């Protein structure tokens, strides 16, 4: 075991939690991420592999799917972002690559991103100040990449009314956190 202590994207050793009214924002560092992009001509083979890895249907454009150990969201044509628990899947890219073999290019993305869960009954009031998503049709399992204060982020509806997960660029975690908490105060 190596002896390096990680810090969260916000610079702490423990995840940051902020609550405004009935909505809570939680920093979630224990997410391992890997990008999977099908190789040319291997698109269907790759999708099959993905299905078997997830144990769930391969997510279509604009959707995410949660499987047993892995979740996946559609990131582009024949391209997905896989996530798993960091504590058990820190080496996600190695595992996933061996699963997909030559059907896909796999790239570790864990620390390219920072992950926040935004939860509470009035989460939509916060979201409409942050990003351009038609929230009326944004149901559980919907996932999209969009801009939040000039930062490209994934927004995933994890529960129809209550919660979303926001995955944004790690280096800008502070700016993203500021934008979300400011919107929480403004909206709630």
């Amino acid at each position, binding site marked *: *075991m*190596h*002896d*390096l*202590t*990680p*810090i*969260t*994207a916000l*610079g702490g050793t423990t995840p940051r939690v902020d609550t405004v009214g009935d909505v809570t924002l939680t920093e979630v*560092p224990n997410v391992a991420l890997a*990008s999977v*992009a099908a*190789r*040319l*001509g291997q698109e269907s083979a790759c999708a099959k592999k993905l299905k078997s890895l997830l144990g769930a249907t391969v997510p279509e454009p604009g959707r995410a799917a949660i499987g047993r150990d892995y979740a996946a969201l559609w990131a582009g044509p024949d*391209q997905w972002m896989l996530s798993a628990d960091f504590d058990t899947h820190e*080496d996600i890219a190695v595992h996933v690559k061996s699963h997909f073999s030559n059907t896909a*290019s796999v*790239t*570790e*993305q*864990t*620390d*390219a*991103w920072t992950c926040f869960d935004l939860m509470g009954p009035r989460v939509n009031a916060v979201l*409409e*100040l*942050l*990003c*351009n*998503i*038609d*929230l*009326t049709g944004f149901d559980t399992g919907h996932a999209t990449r969009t801009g939040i*204060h*000039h*930062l490209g982020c994934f927004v995933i509806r994890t529960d129809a009314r209550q919660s979303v997960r926001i995955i944004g*660029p*790690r*280096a*800008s*975690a*502070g*700016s*993203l956190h*500021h*934008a979300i908490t*400011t*919107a929480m*105060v*403004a909206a709630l």
Partner: protein
Amino acid sequence: MTQKNRLAGGQLDRDTTLSFTFDGKNYSGHLGDTLASALLANNVRLMGRSFKYHRPRGPLTAGSEEPNAIVELRSGARQEPNTRATTAELFDGLSAKSQNRWPSLAFDAMAINDRFSNFLTAGFYYKTFMWPAAFWEKLYEPIIRKAAGLGSLSMQADPDEYDKGFRHCDLLIIGAGPAGLNAALTAGRTGAHVILADEDFRMGGRLNAETLAISDMAGADWAAQTVAELASLPNVRLMARTTVIGAFDHGIYGAVERISDHLAKAPRGKPRQILWRIYAKQTLLCAGATERPIAFDNNDRPGIMLAASLRAYANRWAATPAQRVAIFTNNDDGHRTAQDLHAKGVKIAGVIDTRPDAPRALDYEVLQGAHVTDTKGRLGLTFVEVACADGSTRTIECGALGVSGGWNPNVHLTCHQRGRPTWDDDLAAFVPGGTLPPGMVVAGAAQGIFSTHGALKSGADAARKALGLKGRAPAVPDAKDSPVIQTPFWYVEGCSRAWLDQQNDVTVKDVKLSHQEGFRSVEHLKRYTTLGMATDQGKTSNMGGLAIMAELAGKPIPEVGTTIFRPPYTPTAIGTLAGRMRGKEFHPTRLTPSHYWAEERGAVFVEVGNWLRAQWFPLPGETHWRQSVDREVTATRASVGVCDCTTLGKIDVQGTDAATFLNKVYCNGFAKLAVGKTRYGLMLREDGVAMDDGTAARLAEDQFVVTTTTANAAKVYQHMEFVRQCLMPDADVQLISTTEAWAQYAVAGPNSRRLLQRIVDPDHDISNEGFPFMACGNITVCGGLRARLFRISFSGELAFEIAVPARYGDALMRKLMAEGEEYDVTPYGTEALGVMRIEKGHAAGNELNGTTTALNLGMGRMVSKAKDSIGSKLSERPGLNEAKALMQIGLRPVRADDKVTAGGHLMNATGPVDAAHDQGYVTSAAFSPTLGCMIGLGFLKDGGNRTGETLRLVSPVTDLTVEVEVVSAHFVDPEGERVRA
């Protein structure tokens, strides 16, 4: 403190009395008042001064079309110039000042302009102020500038916050008058997602200002009841205090919601206003109509206002500007005002109706076929002069005059995509034209339907049409009024100083002069006279000007031109359009993985794009940045230094065609690069000019890690996606950015390997033999953490770049510092990095400035002729290959103490110093602690053949001329022995 002109009734909360000040004087009003209604109730008619002549002015209207009653609201940093008193909601403690007057509103010294109005006609300034030539800027212009303008800015940063947001709907309804409300009801009951937006703080539109009944209840009560039902529908969102400011492409509307303008202060963390971007599948415009004035001499005195506004003040706000009021009208609507005011106990001094057959009234005198010809009253109306039908004249005493010239549909938003309204002869008005913004339909008075019943019906019909509803239409609530019949009557014969644009002081006379001088199209008229250019955007003035021009030109109005409206519908605070992106949040900030550690070390940071990078790390006792930077350079070259270079873009390029792909995007060859090796690459734009440089490390047969400069990371990624998707769609290659995933540190200096050997796990051989210059590979560090190691050097020293997952970057930096103590390891910042790369002669952003080619950079031979790559063909053009092309060179001052300045130009040692004799320029300069003098890089004509030559470096803008010697750009270790050590 008495509200002398307060009437009975109205939609005010009489239990809540609010105190406020205007020009320092205390008044009181009620919740539900606007500043204008409260001032009128307090018998204050004079509220402002006009732009040019500084004429005394009171409100003309009761809404957002107001040209006159504009004030400075609030004080201190929240001072808000040019605020319409007619829409500013009263709150307790409100303070307002009149503007554009000195020393006081009642006595304004600049009113002298009015006496000289004969000299200050339209366009007068184009014809004069030219002699002597220098006097324009020194004398005339400063005087004009001082006199011009309206309100003042506080000169302090706006302390309020603004938000922006997004909303989506099936149907956006703009305006909550009878048409809008009934449309919302119709649509809302179907379950469609509806947004109903209204600029007023109370929905209902004209219903709140009228006494007519709907379904046997007062119109205002019907409105309130309807609003209550709409509020109960989960699929309907009511947005009061929300002005839709613009109709943009594809159903995107800008709307400004005023969140706390009606409060003394915004609650902490809450915005003052929100800019909503509303994405509407369909839009229904129910914006109503604006009453139009009639021009007659001196029609601008305080107390003269639009008749329906007078009525609105009486009915909704229980206020009247005077107890004795006259009406001047050309249609029946003016009579309604007389009736309503009379019913409220206001004395009607007479109704002057231009129509010979005007209806008579029992309660007051009607002067049929009469005209108002002039008015009196210095600071407020006292008398009107009337020309009667029989040729006699009458003087009528009154403190207010309501003027009604008919109504103009509010077509503004229909024009925002450059659709033009069409002329309706029956209405003598412009109505929404053929090309509306896609998805928009119009209903109610905005469509020219001037009755309540018609508005209710057209609102419901339009909602059904917009949503594509079939079947029987539900019954329309009963309303008994008939449409106003209006005939054109624009101005009283023979008038001259009759105001059209009250704020900008454009009179009938000015329009005539404009015609006389050939400024006859609507665009020329507008520009020459400034008609319609004031803060009310011509809502009450454009039509009159157009009508007069049409008459002068002997053409029908539509042939003179149509007025076209541009966004925003009402003026919009710049702060609202900016939202939260200001101050430190103007752009997101990107922090490097070692940021918190660097902060602890007391680093000085610098903005590099959106990144914050450590610029240098001052030690105690260092008082000047140069001391720190020189020390960092010297220590690195002597032993070992560490620099966070995470900010360099990293792109993961994978696929069986990855090498082929890189061969296309780099001008030099990559096909044969061995696995485990790194190569420097130069990327050209298709036009043959250098775009970016970096390295590509081949980690596997089908995987490269490409680095870009910090500044160009996004641009290079975009370029590579273009090549991949548009030019090589059949190549097997996949791209993804990994810039932030890895904390990457340069470890440089003769002891860099020794330091790394303490960290890299022992099963990885990083000796010179096992890991030679330009090697790369996946390794583990610190007992098993996955990492990447590249043996590349920007400093010219033996150097490596090591990368670990970003979350471990902080710990790795601390580890490097701890393990490196033995070697006096020194963290260095971007300044030392820059010094070392200049000493080594590496090109960076200053050299890759978008105009330099591989040839200029001394890398002409890198452009492979053996293959096609982006930019290779066009780089062969003669202009980019001239015999004496600029070539990158090094520069040293002839006298060691002399300064070398980046941005300086190079001239021959003798001869003229001017642009024609320019030999090149200095791109980068620094003090080199290694050489003990300043050094520079630059581009010099034929630079490759001029080594040893002495030139003059001139920089007149920094007052510098020094002699410099042309030298090799590689100041340090030109043979490259250190990097291979």
